[in-house]
Structure formats: C-alpha cells, structure tokens
C-alpha cells in the first residue's frame, strides 16, 4: 500500500516535470512552469521522507537544510553575468550526487570502518547484487564522476580561474584513451566481482574506487582541450550527462522518478547540444576533440597577414551618436563582450533614447553568442528589455538590407562574413548574422584582437564599418551622453 502510494507520488511528480517543461515553450508561461516542476520535486521528496521507512530522520533533515541553504545563497547572490558558471557548478553537483548514490548503494553491504556490521544491516540483509544492477552502478559512477569533474573544469574556464584557451599537451589523446580503457577494465573487475560480492568485497570496492578516480581524471581531460567559445556546447552536453547519470542511478535503485526525470534532462541537453553545434556548423566530435580557437590558432594563422595594409575606420562617440540618432532602423547585435563589460543596462538605456527619437530598435541574437545557450537573452531580460524585441538569427537576417545602422557590441565571429564565402576560414559555413549588409556597421570593441576562433574578421576593414574602440560599457555611456546632447 505505502509503496504504491510512493509510486503514485513519483508519477505525479514526473507529470509535473513534463508539464513544467512544456510551459517553458513561451516566456509568458515559463515562470509558472518552473514553479510546477519545483512543486513536483517537493512532492517527490516529501513522499520519500514520509512514506519510506527512514531510519535517521534527523540527519536527513540536517542534510536537506544544509544543502538547501547553500543552494539558496548561491542562487540569490549570483550576478546574471555569472550564470554560465553557476549552471556548470550545479550540473557538477548533480553528477557527483548520482555517482555517490550509486556508491552508497554498494557501500551498504559493507561492514563499518571498525569491521562490524551494524545491527540494522544484520537484521535486514540487503538482496544480493545482480549483474544487471552492477552494470548500472558502474555506469552511474562513470557518468556521474565525468560530469562532476568536467563541469568544474568548465566552471573554472567560464569564471576565468582556468585559461579559456584550449589546453593541449603531447600524448594527451593517448592518455585519454588509456584512461578510458582503464575505466573499462575497472568496470569489468567490478561487474565480475559481484557474484561473490558480500563475501568477497575487495574486487568490487577497489574496482569501484579506481573507476571513480579514473572517471574524475577523464572528465578533466575531456573538457580542458575545449576553448572558451565552445563552452555553450560543453555546458549543454554536461547538462545531458547529468540527466543520464540520474537515470542510471534510477536503474540502480529501481526508482521510476529518477529514470523519467533523468531521461527528460538527458534529452533536453542533447537537443541543446545539437542546436549549438548546428549554429557553429561543426560536428559534436569536432568540438569535443577541441583545440579550436585561442592564441595558438591566432599565432599560426597565415591568412592573417592579408589583413595588413587594409585600413580600419576608427570613429568617435560623437560621430557614432549622430549616425544612430538619424537612423530609421538600428539593429543591436550583442556578444560575449557585452557580458564581460556588464553593459546590458547601458545598452537598454541607449536603445530607449533612440526609440524616443523615433528610431526602430531591434536586437539580433546569434544562437552561440555568449558562453551558454540563451546567455544574451537572460542578460537583456535582466536589463528589462522586452523579449519581443529580441530576434533569432533566421527571423532577422532578411532585415539587415533595410537597416541603417547595425551596432555590434562585443560580438565577433558570429558576424564575420568570411563564414559565408572564405572556404579556407575555420569558421566557413557557420551561419552568421549578416550585419555587413546594413548601410553602416558600428563595432564596439576593445582592440583589434581577433575573436575566440582566432580568425581575423574582414568586417572590421569593410568600407561601411566604423570601429569605436574601448570598453563596451564606457563606449555606450559616452554614446548615451552624445545622443542626449544632440
């Protein structure tokens, strides 16, 4: 009776997750959807707490309070610009939790540190591990640990603690391969050891611990070769892994709630990964092999020399303000540079000023602008830009021909026309925003340094381009002052 009540609660929770995710299809219903999903989670937790025979309620409540408190503080304190790191960190926690739960499932057969099996275990000895369960345990540990360490490397790269450049060293691929084989071996030892398990603990325990360690190193090696600009793909993929890890843990515990939710999240992460890859015209494998972009590519670039001898039209805030004020239509193209400079509020203010002067202002958002899927949208939403002024690439690309001024703020590769015609360019074939087709392009940029792909941007040398050098936020603040003064 109790057990079917729990299953019923899990079913309702899973239904709430699905309905909640469905409501994310529109910004108008999204917040309610997230609350529904949170309600589903609460239901699942409460049902587990009250309907399962919990032996140690005090510890459990303490755990919930500690974890909940940390989560609450992190969620409240975070700056919107730091969202990619936070999502990566939460992802890592989810992966670690899955690996630990699978580990605990095995550990419950073990005697305590003093070698004594507790009375509770003696009273109700757990069922023996089957080979099928053992396979799901090793999968949980593997996926969970890779998600954990990989997510924290991504966290470090996004936060700037680790270099955003791809880190590669000789023999790295070989080392990764050997470690993967080692992990497979450890999984084999673990599974092979299960038939005699509670009697003979060593193969299973050692196999499990070695697997955990190797998986942690693997997670690091898989993410460090990937450059900063490819982080949207990595974060999305790790998101998918954390779902798969939860699902694998669900198989271990024979728990439907975990399997359903894990599958949903796994699918969601995969879709996002796919969208990000398509937006860069690169295969997932190409992204994961890494080494794309960063200083190394810039140094080695032969074609960069062709840029020399071309002239760049630098402009002043005063001239740019005149161009903007007398335009009929302005399209703003934000990129990672806007996030770094925290310029979203200033951008909004400038857009409002222009709108007052009768200029039509729209925002064009490239799918991989920023460091995570939808990064720009969140920042602009924070600055109170209504979401119906934000346009996706396909919606707005036809409009650049009739646009007077495109204002590019800290974006680079996503507006590089070389992607359309230069077959030798590493970003050839990547869909871009066609800002070069507008009458004038104003580019806010700190210096002439190339973007993360390490590719020279021919747009900077185009006759209809004006470069406004400086920090994005300062430049926009100056623009605002000049527009006001007109």
């Amino acid at each position, binding site marked *: 009776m109790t057990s079917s009540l729990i299953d019923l609660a899990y079913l309702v*929770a899973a239904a709430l997750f*699905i309905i909640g995710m469905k409501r*994310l299809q529109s*910004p*108008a219903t*999204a*917040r309610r*959807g997230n609350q529904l999903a949170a309600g589903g*989670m609460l239901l699942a937790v409460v049902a*587990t*707490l009250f309907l*399962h*025979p*919990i032996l*140690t309620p005090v*510890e459990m409540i303490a*755990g*919930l309070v500690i*974890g909940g408190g*940390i989560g609450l503080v992190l969620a409240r304190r975070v700056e919107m610009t730091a*969202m990619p790191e*936070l999502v990566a960190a*939460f992802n890592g926690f989810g992966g*670690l*939790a*899955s690996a*630990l*739960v699978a580990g*605990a499932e095995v*550990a*419950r057969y073990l005697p*305590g*540190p003093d070698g004594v099996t*507790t009375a509770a*275990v003696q009273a109700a000895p757990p069922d023996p591990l089957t080979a099928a369960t053992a396979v799901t345990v090793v999968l949980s540990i593997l996926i969970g640990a890779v998600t954990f360490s990989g997510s924290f490397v991504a966290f470090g790269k996004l936060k700037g603690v680790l270099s955003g450049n791809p880190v590669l060293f000789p023999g790295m691929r070989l080392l990764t391969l050997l470690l993967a084989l080692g992990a497979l071996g450890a999984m084999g030892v673990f599974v092979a050891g299960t038939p005699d398990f509670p009697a003979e603990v060593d193969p299973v325990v050692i196999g499990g611990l070695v697997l955990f360690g190797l998986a942690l190193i693997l997670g690091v090696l898989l993410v460090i070769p990937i450059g900063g600009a490819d982080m949207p793909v990595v974060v999305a993929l790790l*998101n998918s892994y954390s779902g798969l890890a*939860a699902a694998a843990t*669900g198989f*271990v*515990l*024979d728990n439907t709630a*975990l*399997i*359903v939710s894990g*599958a*949903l*999240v*796994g699918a*969601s*992460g995969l879709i*996002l990964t796919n*969208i990000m890859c398509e937006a860069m015209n690169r295969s997932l494998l190409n992204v994961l092999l890494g080494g794309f972009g960063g200083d190394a590519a810039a140094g080695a670039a032969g074609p960069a020399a062709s840029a020399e001898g071309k002239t760049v039209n630098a402009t002043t805030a005063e001239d740019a303000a005149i161009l903007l004020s007398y335009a009929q239509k302005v399209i703003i193209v934000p990129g990672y540079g806007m996030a770094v400079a925290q310029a979203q509020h200033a951008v909004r203010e400038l857009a409002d000023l222009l709108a007052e002067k009768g200029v039509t202002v729209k925002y064009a*958002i490239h799918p991989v602008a920023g460091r995570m*899927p*939808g990064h720009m949208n*969140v920042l602009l939403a924070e600055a*109170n830009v*209504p979401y119906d*002024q*934000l346009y996706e690439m396909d919606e707005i690309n036809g409009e650049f021909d009739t646009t007077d001024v495109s204002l590019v703020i800290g974006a680079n590769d996503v507006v590089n026309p070389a992607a359309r015609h230069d077959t030798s360019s590493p970003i050839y074939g990547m869909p871009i925003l066609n800002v070069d087709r507008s009458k004038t392009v104003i580019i806010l940029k700190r210096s002439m340094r190339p973007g993360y792909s390490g590719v020279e941007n021919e747009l900077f040398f185009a006759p209809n381009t004006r470069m406004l050098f400086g920090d994005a936020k300062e430049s926009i603040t100056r623009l605002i002052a000049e527009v006001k003064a007109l």
Partner: protein
Amino acid sequence: MLENLIIFVLASFIGFEVISKVPQTLHTPLMSGTNAISGITMVGALVVAGMVGGVWAKWIGFAALIVATINVVGGFMVTDRMLQMFKKKEPPARLEAASEAGTPTSSPSSLSQTAS
C-alpha cells in the same frame, strides 16, 4: 529491468518532443531548470542514506543528499529569478510583478515607462 528500460526510452521521446519547441530566448532557464530536475537524485540519496544502517552508506548518502539538494534548491531558485525578468513590452499594468521582483530588476522600471 526491461520495464525500466521501456520507461527510460518513452520518457526520452517525451523529452525530445517537449524540449525541441522551447524558443532560443529561454535556453538558459531551460538548462538551469532541467538541471534542477536532474537533482531528483536527492530522492535516491534519501532512500539509500535513510533506509539502511551501514555506516559507509549512510555518510556517502548524506554527502550525496547535500550536493543534490544544492542542485535542486539552487537550480529552481535561480531559474525563477531569471524567468521573472522576462517581460513583454508594456509592463506597467502588472505592478505585482514589479514589486515581487525585489532583486536587481526593479531599478530600471522608470526606463520601461519612457520606452512605452
């Protein structure tokens, strides 16, 4: 086991179906929201840590419970914080939305009026 596999496959299909219609503008909240859902492992942590008496299992499960709860509570909260910022044009009629948004969004409300 087979039953579980069936559930897994069917749930994946539902996931693909539902998520592929989420617009680009909501991709970040989608990620952090689904991320919070993947913290469902906390249920698993409660089960293993709470049900059995083994000392190792209890403490490993306890650690799992803490990290999973961080993921769930933090994930849902931060998603909510993001989603409350997504507004259509003309927001003045919705005063309750503005007053709820105690966090950084409230300051530029004067701007939103100049826009309209």
